[in-house]
């Protein structure tokens, strides 16, 4: 075999090993968004910008995800405490619209247990 045959063979093996390491290495659980409503528990990736409609007895609470940050955009409750709670970014932080039975939490990051069944 010629010199660059060996170079490309080694490169190939390194690429294979690298992809194996990337695929199998234990990582921290990626951050996820959990939304609990009367309709059930919903989970979404935090790294995708999206609008989540959480439906409760009063109507729809709009949860806005952008740039890995979450806040309540619109809610049908009277006191709007959930809007005033601002923006959350880290595992364990949460927002809630109690009148509309909506609970929003960021999970993951450091092997956190998932949300327990919510009771309102």
């Amino acid at each position: 075999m010629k010199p660059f045959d060996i170079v490309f063979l080694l490169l190939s093996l390194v690429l294979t090993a690298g992809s194996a390491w990337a695929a199998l290495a234990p990582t921290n659980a990626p951050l996820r968004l959990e939304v609990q409503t009367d309709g059930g528990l919903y989970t979404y990736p935090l790294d995708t910008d999206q609008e989540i409609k959480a439906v409760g007895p009063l109507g729809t609470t709009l949860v806005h995800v952008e740039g890995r940050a979450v806040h309540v955009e619109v809610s049908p409750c009277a006191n709007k405490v959930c809007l005033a709670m601002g923006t959350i970014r880290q595992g364990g932080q949460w927002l809630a619209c109690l009148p509309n039975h909506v609970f929003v939490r960021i999970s993951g990051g450091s092997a956190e247990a998932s949300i327990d069944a919510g009771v309102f």
Partner: protein
Amino acid sequence: MPGSSKKMAQARLPLVAFFGALSLFFATLEYLFPTPPWFRLGLANLPILLALDFFTFPELLLLLLLKVIGQGIVNGTLASQAFLLSSSGSLASFVVMYMAFRLIPRGWISLIGLSLAGSMASNTVQVGLSMVLIFGPASGIIAPWFLGLGTLSGLGIGWGAETLKRHSRWLRRVKLGQSS
């Protein structure tokens, strides 16, 4: 004379077409070598490897096109995602192989190295596209398998091409005929 080079190029087109046919033919010989399902050995690349040192760049591109579209028509997969994956892989493989062929001095690399380079490029592109279009981001776990098997097949195809290059009398006569 300006007209004669165009005539020469025209006269070589049938040879390009024959290599295209070889590519399709070799692909059907893959059954002679046992491989796991989902994985293709890539014997269709052998004629391209062989043609690298005596086809011009436009001829190689034409050969690539014949190989890729030809496989799509012959296998009936032209309108499916398989075509998108295999054509992207073939293109990536060709670009890398040709660049390696042109940039690395002849005595420093053989068809084995070129085949390995091409195989790496092709499998990386195909795994990437599969993750984006078909299986989703969680399928990164298939990458080491494909890249590992690709390394083995790259070695095998390269060795096969080198063997043909050294021992095929037909190939030798073709090259002689083209240079006269």
